């Protein structure tokens, strides 16, 4: 037990030195950090939002929204395919989206099978062995065809929508000019956004809470007003609320959507009020020009997130590929809308389901109090250990110091974040390390009382205590892993530090202390042990 082969000593101290190197950047100022040559570790341990201040938002999408969007996209596919069918367009009626499925009736009963075949082909899965995303079947009515998205289809759609949502959110937050936001997906339908240093998340929430789906639709001027008042729109049309009150009946099909926007800026309208101007890409511009040419004299509606913002008349064809939205905007709200339009629409509506915001002052106070308290705690532990175990106490305290540096080094290199519960976890690992040394030292004392020689006492002490330390720490690792698997947020952070800490604690408190004890015993050859 007391003989340490050279390779063992070397690899032990090499591990310590490596961790120290990894921990070093944390002690450096940014200017010193810049001097570190590339290739050497320079990542600092980032502080969690609870320590440095900032906003944590959890957003959740409703999968039903994605399903609905998928059905709407299917509607376009169905119309297009039927129109371009071989042997002339297939006439259909009663196209409706209800109860998560799309149904329509083929007018010519002999062409139902053809309709099913072409739709099957149009919605065939990409890639070999991929699951079908929609099922197409005959409905209960004669000539009726039903299109139902499959579970796999919905799940793929949700997945795609969420990935896209993360990108849109990133663009929007970048527009705000905040630094280093963290945007990650969590589970199937959630996105966690963390913005350090942001004290008032209202602007951020306003940006994230809007879908920003922009549509241009023709106003249905032929609708029967009495029917509309009862909430019934003519087939192919829909009733939408208007921003200045009342309702507008518009055609369901959009002339053009915000997807074709390439830029949008704050401008002023002819009355000098803030407005938002936008520009379409070339295909969008052409389509807009064509639609406005064909419908001169008729009104069209500009719709944002299902709300009609304005419904101006088309006085003349709009050929330039750009336009302007004016409503009752302030500079701030116009700017917000411009950002939203620039960054594109969210494929799905997101709701904030959890918010945690910590002001930077509070974070700083917590750090200060945390440092003072930890210093006193460490001094108390060190004092007790040295008073109780003398030389072996000094070894333990030295090993404790290395332990903390190793935890910091590993966490910095692995890219973890230090949170308040993380600091608590660190204090507790120090506890585990202290316990390991107490076990060893008490065992040495016991052996000493049995009248054994110095070397025999130390040997037995380490050997017997090691087994117990191993048992106890395996259990702690189990608890830490379970915390990590099932815990959320703060518990996870705590579990990470605990797992790393338990490993380094056993290493420092047992191996390093034993090395130091062995060195002392072999070089000083003490006749008695004062422990």
């Amino acid at each position, binding site marked *: *037990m007391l003989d340490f082969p050279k390779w063992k000593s070397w690899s032990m101290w090499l591990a310590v030195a490596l961790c120290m190197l990894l921990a070093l950047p944390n002690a450096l100022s940014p200017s010193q950090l810049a001097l570190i040559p590339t290739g050497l570790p320079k990542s600092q341990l980032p502080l969690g939002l*609870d320590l440095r201040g900032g906003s944590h938002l959890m957003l959740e999408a409703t999968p039903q929204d994605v399903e609905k969007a998928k059905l709407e996209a299917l509607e376009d596919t169905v119309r297009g395919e039927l129109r371009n069918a071989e042997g002339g367009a297939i006439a259909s009626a009663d196209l409706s989206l209800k109860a998560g499925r799309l149904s329509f009736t083929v007018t010519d009963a002999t062409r139902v099978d053809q309709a099913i075949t072409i739709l099957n082909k149009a919605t065939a899965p990409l890639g070999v062995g991929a699951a079908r995303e929609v099922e197409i079947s005959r409905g209960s009515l004669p000539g009726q065809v039903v299109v139902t998205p499959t579970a796999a289809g919905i799940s793929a759609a949700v997945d795609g929508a969420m990935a896209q949502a993360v990108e849109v959110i990133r663009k929007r937050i970048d527009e705000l000019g905040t630094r280093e936001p963290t945007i990650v997906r969590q589970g199937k339908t959630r996105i966690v956004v963390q913005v350090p240093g942001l004290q*008032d998340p209202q602007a951020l929430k306003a940006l994230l*809470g809007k879908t920003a789906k922009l549509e241009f639709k023709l106003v249905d001027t032929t609708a029967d007003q009495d029917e509309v008042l009862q909430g019934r729109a003519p087939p192919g049309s829909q009733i939408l609320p208007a921003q200045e009150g009342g309702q507008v009946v518009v055609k369901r099909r959009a002339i053009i959507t915000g997807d074709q926007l390439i830029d949008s800026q704050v401008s002023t309208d002819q009355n000098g009020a803030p407005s938002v101007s936008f520009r379409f890409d070339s295909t969008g511009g052409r389509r807009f020009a064509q639609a406005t040419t064909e419908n001169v004299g008729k009104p069209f509606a500009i719709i944002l997130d299902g709300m009609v913002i304005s419904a101006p008349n088309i006085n003349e064809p709009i050929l330039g590929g750009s336009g302007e939205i004016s409503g009752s905007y302030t500079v701030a709200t116009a700017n917000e809308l411009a950002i939203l339009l620039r960054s594109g629409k969210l494929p799905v509506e997101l*709701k904030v*389901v*959890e*918010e*945690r915001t*910590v*002001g930077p002052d*509070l974070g700083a106070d*917590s750090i200060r*109090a945390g440092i*003072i*308290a*930890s210093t*006193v*705690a460490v001094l*108390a*532990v060190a004092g*007790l*250990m040295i*008073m*109780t175990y003398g030389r072996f106490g000094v070894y333990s305290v030295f090993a404790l110091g290395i332990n903390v540096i190793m935890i910091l080094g590993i966490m910095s290199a692995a890219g973890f974040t230090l949170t*308040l*519960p993380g600091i*608590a976890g660190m*204090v507790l690992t*120090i*506890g585990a390390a*202290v*316990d390991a040394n107490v076990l060893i030292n*008490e*065992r040495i004392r*016991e052996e000493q009382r049995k009248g054994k020689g110095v070397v025999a006492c130390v040997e037995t002490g*380490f050997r017997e205590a*090691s*087994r*117990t*330390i*191993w*048992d*106890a720490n*395996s259990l*702690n690792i*189990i*608890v*830490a892993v*379970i915390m990590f*698997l*099932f815990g*959320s947020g*703060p*518990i996870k952070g*705590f579990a990470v530090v*605990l797992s790393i800490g338990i490993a380094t604690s056993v290493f420092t408190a047992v*191996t390093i202390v*034993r090395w130091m004890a062995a060195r002392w015993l072999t070089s000083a050859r003490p006749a008695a042990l*004062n422990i």
Partner: protein
Amino acid sequence: MPLKLVPDDTNIGFVKLRFIAFALTLALTIGAAALLAVRGLNLGVDFVGGLTMQVEFAQPPALDTLRGRVDRVGVGDSALQEFGNDRTILIRLPLPEGEEGAVQRVVGKVRGALEADYKGVKFARVESVSGKVSSELISDGVKAVGFSMLFVALFTWFRFEWYFGVSTVVALVHDVVVTLGFFSLTWLEFDLNIVAAVLTIIGYSLNDKVVIDDRIRENLRKYRQMDIKQIIDLSVNETLPRTVMTSVTLLAALIALLLLGPEVIFGFTAAMVLGIIVGTYSSIFVSSSLLITLGVKQRAAGSEDARAKGAERIG
């Protein structure tokens, strides 16, 4: 002469005291459980949803006026509490009716109202959790605690014998229930951080029990003829210096954190301090003596040598 918290070679008859200890343990557990059943826990927004705002005012506000102001916003009954000093107020509001995300509008309204009426008001911390998320956090917390206990029991069973597993888990349940009872009694807020504390208490208490169990196993092997009661007393006494030393050291560190540390971790450290005291008590008086009741046998020591050898390689 080095400091010794426990004199050498103590010989305290812990086993003899076991019926008193069992009675006390039972009383504490039932008492805490009853308290939990009747009074419940002051669950934080993490678990019931709603929102908490830690607001710093320029001058100490009159609580009645402030409560009236918040209630006028019309977002439900508010609960106000001073936090650390009289200028810092914790405002709790219930989960609003309606869809997910409604809680966000409440945050905005209250913020607007207070910023308009109180000059220089600062929102140091805002936490809002929707109903769905909070119920998930509850189930996550329960799962974390439940699975920890289960795996601890399994590990102790495989590493030792089944009665060690049972006695350990019984003692752990006692520790957890008493800690929860303490939170019910003091009405300290019970949030996610406290769940982490409860898990850590399980970890520490476990540590203590494993150390004693390990010694019992070792002594069972060493003194094959000795009576089990004597063996348990011997083992608890032999490990007493370490049990006390470790607990005292940890308590010293935790009390420093409790008194000087940031307000945010007060509940966490309070739970830890209590947990260590309760855990140490249950290790010394409950879990080891329970082995007798469960009928531990000498053969518990058999065939452990091979496995124990493997463990030494770490040192």
